[in-house]
């Protein structure tokens, strides 16, 4: 299955990439996606994860066609 993964702000700089499509037949959760895209770089403590534009935690299940995002705490306004 194919999943679109996006990184924003300091997370984009930390992983040195903004977006990647991954083929993930063995991937079951948001946490698994992180391991596949980040390799041995640990997930920073206050990382926010979103699945299809809704915040989700690392154990949230992923499915084909999902858009997964990782980003730091928001600082707008």
């Amino acid at each position, binding site marked *: 299955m194919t999943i679109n993964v*996006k990184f*924003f*702000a*300091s997370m984009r700089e930390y992983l040195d990439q903004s977006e990647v499509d991954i083929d993930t037949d063995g991937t079951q959760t948001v946490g698994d996606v992180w391991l596949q895209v980040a390799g041995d770089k640990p997930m920073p403590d*206050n990382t*926010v994860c*979103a699945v299809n*534009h809704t915040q989700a935690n690392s154990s949230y299940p992923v499915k084909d066609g999902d858009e997964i*995002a990782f*980003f*730091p*705490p*928001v*600082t*707008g*306004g």
Partner: protein
Amino acid sequence: MAVIIVEDQFDPWQALQVHQQSHLASGQFGATATFIGTMRDFNEGDEVCAMTLEHYPGMTESQLQLIIDDANQQWPLQDALIIHRVGDILPGQPIVLVGCWSAHRAAAFDACRFLMEALKSRAPFWKKETLSDQSHRWVEKNTDGYSH
């Protein structure tokens, strides 16, 4: 109810005037509460020369719409407007505008503040500052606007 993400500088007072004239029926609303956040030239003790505002297209808009839906469930609003700037921005330029229209002032005041605090904790925007020595830093977190 409107959510607008803008890349170019906007005039908050003109935006409010135009929105009110085109969306609100004269004589219906009694209370308008607004908040405007403007870029300062100092932060955390340092001089700030410029800023870049990043957002998550798609999720940002849907989160702002959810925040407005939340406010509508809590208060009898006649209208609400959120405008947020993205891209490169300079000190003195507006970053965010929140406006609420209601029959009575308690609802307008409370909803305006709720929208602003919800935006700062739930809407995906990130600020990167350029300091006077041309170094860059990401703003790490927003403060709680209800505490003093």
